[in-house]
């Protein structure tokens, strides 16, 4: 466990301090979008824009970080042979994947915390104290699912395949989930099965009525379980020993 945490710590350090564009993509982008729409009059999903887009943009930043920055990176590290190199050390099997998920969970926090803070300070969102950590935790839970999906893609595909596959899934999740703009009609019906939509829905429900919809939590947990299963299968099928 110490080894896994040491690896996770170095992963976080290099992502945050050394990867150019990392903070821009995961924090600056959702912040900029929120600054653009957070004070617009109007409502979405029955809550004021300030509240809806606070949750949507926190999610956007967290999912971008968890999915897009990890999937291609893992595929590349496998191709380069870094995972093989680790296999030759005393690091226990599975630690690489565990460290990736832990590091990913840590690195999504800035986006979530900063956008929620902006919602309060810039968007003027007022909520009872307990609702803030609940919203943050729900976004984080969904983000962990996307970290697992990133592992599945990174282990299943070469980097040049992983890149477009990740982008297609990412944009489908973001757009159909209504994170950039709420959808209506038939497309919205499709979107309801997605974890992205359900995160936004939980946000709206918590803000408008102070309740957490159990069915939404169930959908998010279902996707988390499915993504985790995909990751486990992908890691097993590409075991380093042949």
């Amino acid at each position, binding site marked *: 466990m110490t080894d896994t945490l040491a690896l996770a710590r170095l992963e976080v350090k290099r992502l945050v301090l050394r990867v150019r564009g990392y903070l821009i993509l995961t924090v600056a982008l959702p912040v900029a979008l929120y600054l653009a729409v957070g004070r617009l009059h109007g409502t979405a999903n029955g809550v004021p824009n300030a509240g809806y887009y606070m949750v949507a943009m926190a999610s956007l930043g967290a999912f971008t970080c968890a999915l897009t920055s990890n999937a291609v990176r893992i595929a590349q590290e496998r191709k380069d042979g*870094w995972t093989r190199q680790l296999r030759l050390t005393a690091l226990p099997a599975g630690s690489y994947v565990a460290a990736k998920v832990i590091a990913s969970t840590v690195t999504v926090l800035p986006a979530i915390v900063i956008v929620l803070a902006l919602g309060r300070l810039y968007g003027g969102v007022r909520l009872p104290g307990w609702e803030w950590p609940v919203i943050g935790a729900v976004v984080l839970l969904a983000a962990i699912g996307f970290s697992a999906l990133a592992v599945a893609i990174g282990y299943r595909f070469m980097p040049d395949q992983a890149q477009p596959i990740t982008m297609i899934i990412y944009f489908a999740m973001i757009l159909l989930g209504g994170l950039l703009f709420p959808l209506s009609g038939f497309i919205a019906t499709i979107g309801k099965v997605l974890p992205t939509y359900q995160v936004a829905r939980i946000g709206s429900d918590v803000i408008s009525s102070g309740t957490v919809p159990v069915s939404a939590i169930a959908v998010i947990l279902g996707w988390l379980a499915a993504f985790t299963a995909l990751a486990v299968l992908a890691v097993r099928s590409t075991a380093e020993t042949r």
Partner: protein
Amino acid sequence: MRSEGLVSPVPAAPAAAFTDVSKVYGSVRAVDGLSVELRPGEAAALLGPNGAGKSTCLEMLLALRTPTNGSVRVLGGDPYRAVKSGRVGAMLQSGGLMPEVTVAELVTLVAGFHPRPLPVDQTLRQAGIADLANRRVDRLSGGQKQRVRFALAIAGECDLLVLDEPTAAMDVETRQAFWAGMKAEVARGRTLLFATHYLEEADQAADRILVLSKGRLLADGTPAQIKASAGARRISFRLEDANEPFLRSLPALTTLELRRDLVQIQSTDSDRTLYALLDAGCRPHQIEITGLDLEQAFLAITAADNSGNPADTTRISR
């Protein structure tokens, strides 16, 4: 009661043991019935042309591949367990490195995984990369990365070092420094097995050479023995009206090259070959007899194998 002197010393387990190992990829037999043992403290070089099965052998030793048949044991046990208990230091030809971290951060990380880590400063110095400690790994040259991989292999105390073409991307100077460091490791009692293309290195750094071709062990002995076994000497002379069938029939001859009147022969017993030539009434001139260097020996051994001779392993009694 003390029983000193009565206890017979228990022989140490071989550092590595292949027993009748084969590895098949589809229709290709990469390794074909290999049996060989490495004794603790030995420095052994694995030689062979491309595709001889060298990398496959090393990967089976490191539990990166499982043999199709036969068994591979490392330090008396399962290879995977030996690797994961930190008893094996390994460096592959193309092991990737974590990007966007510094050399010191990376070596510190890997040393931290090791049950018996060595001080990072010492490892960096030994690998000749102390001056690169704060450089980013992804901004190093090929040779520098190679030395970082070596540093990772020696970041902890290990019993067996396995290196696949360790000096492939190094310049001459770096290579010499590398082997000086390697000799120090072996002197401290570690067992070393390395694959290389540079026969000169095998000659200098190894006290045992294993020649592999088409997945089979063709020769096994000290560098001197390998040279001797391969048609120990080269005889060259000029002879008017040289008759090829006659020359081919000379005793102890392994190879013959004929260019007009220039004859070059490799022979396992140059005296016998030459006397037979003289006894037949030939009077060659400009006679030169030279010992083979390892490269020529190696070429002779693998050429004999390629020509379809049923060359059994040249086992050299030790």
